[in-house]
């Protein structure tokens, strides 16, 4: 009967422990996919942090100014005389001071040409002006020089200016003089001076008005281009940014474009799509937008601002418009690619939105005061940094063919217009991603995925820097292996370590973790899901470890694969070990080859899971096979929590120091022995003692000796998202511990011998019960002799009979034990409250659901 009773309890506990184990559709951690960008149209390392690439084909501001200067000199020759040398024009226009030019003007107008300094007289430009007495040209130069001088002073940051400054008055006077000039000869140059002066004095509207009056009289030349630049600036300042942008696009003035984009908070992608779809800069702008979709990292968290559903929908319309308007085939293809990516993002956002609505509903129904942890967990899910819904619900990651059909159609259009092999590789990769998300998961899916993984592997191989080339490059650039790889941070020189191969590797990771893993989980293929995850995270490292002897792949207790494995059952892990050792099909072999295959790691984890499931015989089987040297590499080995006594009755913190390598195996073996003894022992009191010890081991293995069954726990309390992968720890473990504790207490009822029962009660800190029911026993006598507060344990109705002072009130040993008991009691009370809270919430939710029905 007693054995049956015990067996029933044990089965209940086992069932309870099984209950939280993951079913195929149950919760599992979402992979951290940040920094993975699968969208790519051009080879570029990092277009997100740069506004444009330094290798961009359009000239930079400096180059543009040089070109402008050359054109200006040529125009002077055309307007004045072709006989004048370029050098002399340059000297007068660009190098002479304002004073020198004013002096020449004064002497010429006074008829004192002979007084002009010799070196200037020898200048063919000056000579020509003297000969022709071209006062208009010299006056223009005087205005230009004076204006330049004042504007230069205004631009000096060390000059504090106000609108009342003399400089403003002088510039205004220059503008008036230049605007008064009406002749056709040099009108463009006078107009430029007027526009410059008006712009510098912030008279933007007046400047535009003046330009509109003379615009038709100004020929198409470098001066007109310069004027239009200023006019565009005036438009930008008067709120007509779009009009300004048109001019800047024509002039290739990217600095001004950037200025307006920032000032007006305009979106570069939209502006380029509308106004410059054929711009050689368009690919950079598109790539930058695509990066924003991809890099949804903590670092790039601001990216979220740009991908609100409406803005993205708007972007899709602009991309399609640009794709139609573009004439250059490559740009056309790039815009279609962008449309495909945006269309897909819209679907992802839509799914995320729906997922958020479900979570929001759950949050609304939750009472934060009583269930803060659940609320926090829901918030974490809701504001997850993933660009897809939280994958703890794998079904939410599955998109239908119909949802991504539009994106695939745009991709086909992109492929049609640009036959470049590199670009076609990128479109193919995106197609793999889309199909991996939408195809039905079955054997054909696996066959198809195997083929595509091989294709991506080929791309990784093609793009990884070969050993010899790398070494040559390193020698040339004086870079050592240590400059490339940090033994702690794996790699630090991205280009040398991965080259472009990193993109392909990350793409594979995104496809597998974001599409294949949740799909496999959803159909219950947990082993396959773990294979995909392991491959996705380790394949490149394994490959590179062959190239770089410095790389050592260590057991990881924090990556996605670990997190996924940690949420699987022990049997599922055991099945994975079988596949690792004996692959069944070519896909197994392919995935195994790129996976972390340290068998000790997997066996140790499986053994730990069996301990978690309280299947000690199975745990022994796996833990025995783990090399003791490997056990020194597990994450908690240096922690004293692997050296606590799991059979301690009230306080396991009896030992200090680093963990023991055979800690888990030793525990499993002792538990197994206790199980055997329970079947063999007939004396009821001995059986009770054994059962108490067994239940204590079970209790402690989830409580103070949690390292026996888990890999993470915070030092201060329960786990949370920041400290490990167990978001549900509190929710599932507290009821479990509570139940074990409750059942342990029942064990005392089965004792026959009051002395042995009292001794056991003393050991487990149940002093009140001893004083109430077993006051005649040795244990009670011991309490009376050693405990200062033994009277507190005596029930009030018995106090008079047992009154008396402790004969040894100075001894504090028992008091310490009492404090421990009180602390434990408080803890248990709080746990019980938590458990009650969970139950209440469940009850309330059930009532709500029933109410709705």
């Amino acid at each position, binding site marked *: 009967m007693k054995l049956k009773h015990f067996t029933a309890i044990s089965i209940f506990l086992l069932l309870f422990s099984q209950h939280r184990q993951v079913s195929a559709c149950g919760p599992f951690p979402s992979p951290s996919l940040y920094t993975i960008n699968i969208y790519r149209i051009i080879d570029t390392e990092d277009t997100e942090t740069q506004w444009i690439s330094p290798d961009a084909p359009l000239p930079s501001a400096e180059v543009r100014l040089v070109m402008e200067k050359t054109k200006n000199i040529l125009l002077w020759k055309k307007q004045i005389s072709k006989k004048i040398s370029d050098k002399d024009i340059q000297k007068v226009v660009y190098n002479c001071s304002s004073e020198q030019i004013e002096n020449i003007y004064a002497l010429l107008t006074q008829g004192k040409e002979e007084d002009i300094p010799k070196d200037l007289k020898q200048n063919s430009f000056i000579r020509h002006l003297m000969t022709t007495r071209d006062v208009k040209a010299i006056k223009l130069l005087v205005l230009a020089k004076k204006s330049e001088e004042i504007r230069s002073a205004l631009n000096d*940051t*060390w*000059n*504090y*200016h*106000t609108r*009342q*400054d003399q400089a403003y008055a002088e510039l205004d006077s220059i503008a008036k003089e230049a605007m008064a000039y009406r002749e056709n000869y040099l009108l463009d140059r006078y107009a430029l001076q007027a526009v410059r002066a008006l712009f510098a004095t912030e008279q933007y509207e007046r400047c535009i008005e003046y330009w509109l009056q003379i615009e038709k009289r100004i020929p198409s030349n470098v001066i007109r281009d310069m004027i239009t630049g200023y006019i565009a600036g005036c438009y930008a300042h008067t709120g007509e940014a779009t009009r300004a942008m048109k001019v800047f696009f024509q002039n290739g003035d990217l600095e001004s474009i950037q200025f307006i984009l920032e000032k007006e908070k305009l979106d570069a992608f939209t502006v380029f799509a509308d106004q410059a779809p054929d711009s050689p800069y368009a690919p950079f702008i598109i790539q930058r937008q695509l990066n924003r979709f991809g890099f949804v990292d*903590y670092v790039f*968290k*601001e990216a*979220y*601002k740009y991908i609100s559903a409406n803005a993205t929908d708007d972007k899709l319309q602009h991309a399609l418009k640009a794709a139609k308007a573009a004439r250059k085939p490559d740009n056309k293809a790039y815009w279609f690619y962008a449309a495909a990516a945006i269309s897909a993002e819209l679907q992802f956002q839509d799914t995320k939105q729906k997922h958020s609505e479900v979570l929001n509903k759950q949050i609304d129904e939750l009472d934060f005061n009583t269930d803060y942890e659940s609320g926090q967990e829901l*918030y*974490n899910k809701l*504001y997850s940094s993933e660009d897809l819904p939280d994958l703890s619900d794998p079904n939410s990651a599955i998109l239908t063919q119909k949802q991504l059909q539009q994106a695939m159609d745009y991709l086909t259009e992109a492929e049609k217009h640009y036959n470049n092999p590199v670009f076609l590789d990128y479109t193919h990769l995106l197609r793999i991603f889309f199909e991996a998300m939408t195809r039905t998961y079955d054997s054909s899916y696996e066959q198809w995925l195997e083929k595509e993984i091989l294709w991506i592997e080929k791309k990784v191989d093609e793009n990884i820097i070969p050993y010899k080339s790398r070494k040559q490059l390193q020698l040339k650039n004086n870079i050592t292996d240590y400059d490339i790889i940090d033994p702690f941070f794996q790699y630090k020189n991205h280009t040398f370590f991965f080259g472009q191969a990193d993109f392909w590797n990350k793409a594979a990771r995104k496809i597998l973790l974001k599409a294949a893993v949740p799909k496999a989980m959803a159909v219950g293929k947990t082993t396959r899901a773990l294979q995909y995850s392991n491959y996705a995270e380790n394949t490149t490292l394994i490959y590179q470890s062959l190239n770089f002897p410095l790389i050592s792949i260590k057991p990881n207790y924090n990556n996605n694969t670990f997190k996924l494995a940690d949420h699987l059952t022990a049997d599922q892990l055991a099945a994975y070990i079988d596949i690792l050792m004996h692959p069944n099909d070519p896909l197994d072999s392919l995935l195994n080859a790129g996976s972390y295959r340290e068998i000790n790691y997997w066996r140790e984890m499986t053994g730990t899971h069996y301990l978690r499931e309280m299947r000690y015989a199975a745990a022994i089987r796996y833990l025995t096979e783990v090399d003791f040297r490997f056990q020194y590499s597990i994450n908690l080995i240096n922690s004293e929590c692997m050296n606590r006594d799991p059979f301690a009755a009230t306080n396991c913190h009896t030992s200090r120091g680093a963990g023991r390598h055979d800690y888990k195996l030793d525990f499993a073996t002792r538990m197994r022995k206790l199980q055997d003894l329970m079947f063999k022992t007939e004396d009821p009191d001995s059986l009770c003692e054994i059962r108490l010890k067994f239940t204590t081991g079970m209790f402690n293995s989830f409580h103070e000796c949690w390292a026996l069954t888990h890999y993470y726990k915070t030092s201060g309390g329960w786990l949370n*998202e*920041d400290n490990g992968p167990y978001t549900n720890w509190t929710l599932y473990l507290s009821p479990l511990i509570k139940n074990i504790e409750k059942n342990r207490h029942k064990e005392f009822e089965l004792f026959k011998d009051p002395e042995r029962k009292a001794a056991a009660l003393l050991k487990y800190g149940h002093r009140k019960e001893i004083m109430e029911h077993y006051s005649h026993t040795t244990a009670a006598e011991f309490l009376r002799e050693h405990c200062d507060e033994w009277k507190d344990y005596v029930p009030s109705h018995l106090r008079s009979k047992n009154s008396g002072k402790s004969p040894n009130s100075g001894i504090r040993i028992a008091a310490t034990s009492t404090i421990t008991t009180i602390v434990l009691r408080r803890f248990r009370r709080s746990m019980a409250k938590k458990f009650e809270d969970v139950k209440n919430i469940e009850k309330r939710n059930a009532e709500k659901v029933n109410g709705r029905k």
Partner: protein
Amino acid sequence: MFYRNLLILLLLLLFSTCQPDSSRIGWNRRFQSESTDTPMQTESHRAIYHWKTTYNPNEQERHFLCKHRIEKLYIRYFDLSIDREGSSRQVIPSAVTTFCQPVPEGMEIVPTVYVTLDALKVIAGNSGNNHNPNIRTYAQKTLSYIDAMSAANNISNIREIQIDCDWTNSTEKAFHNFCSILKKSLHDSGRRLSLTIRLHQLRKTAPPADYGVLMLYNTGGIRNYNTDNSILDPKDIRGYFNQTNNRIANYALPLDIAYPTFEWCVLFNKEQYCEGILYNIDLRDKAHFRRNNSRNNLYKVLQSYTYGATELFPGDELRHEFVAYETLSTCKQLAEQDFLKAKRNYSVILYHLDHTNLSKYTPYEIEALYSH
């Protein structure tokens, strides 16, 4: 008798007037001696800093100046910092204050310039000696810029200029030289130089100036997650006062004291400082913030929240820092007892003129801070 009554009436009128006029400023002359070479003991007056990029005090702030009879306004004119846009590392005036309204008539204005450490390093150049042309050039440029700003904004009642700089051991010599040049130029034009003095700088040789303002704020480690209040905490300043080797008494410059009347929130992520200081954030918004049970001034961000240019994300933490009057009072007592022991006269300056922050204190408390 009539004349006596008239005189009393006039005196009463004069004391009750809101706007401190120039004649009153004249009575409260900072320096007892006209000598410009020897630092002299200060006289008491009420002052406050204006530390914004736009000078546009609202009605309540203007009322504050009147109500508490503020005689002296330290206005931050600009920062001296490095030109990050230019190709060469040039020191330029940045964050220049825009004056949207005239400064109060008759009030003494002290143009204040904050010199960043980076700028000071560039000013110092390779050598910190007096002959380094950089130091002289920048000192003269700084004065010219201040004068141009004052002239352009019709600010005339200027008797001194203040330099605020958190100079270090490596920049000490250069800073001293910079101050020395400034001081001489200012004295030549009948003006004085004052400096802000941080607590740790009390241990160093006093830079050449006419007096210093002892900053009793920013005394704790702002980057340290475990700091309770980096603005002012009595335990952070205790070591500087009431010592046997009285630093206040022995410091070579006369000192005024500046107390903080501002608040801010310091942003942390995973206990790491995030270079984010947020002002006037509504922490009562329970949908976004949740107060930490064990640390009262620590708030956890529950939902994403955009605050100006800063984005807050779930899990981020904000440390709200504000110095309550009681704490200020304790610190004031702690600091001022040293001044009294040393028989030093001093003025109290509040940092800074901002209604949102000042409204956290009652008029009585403000008066108590100014009184000594």
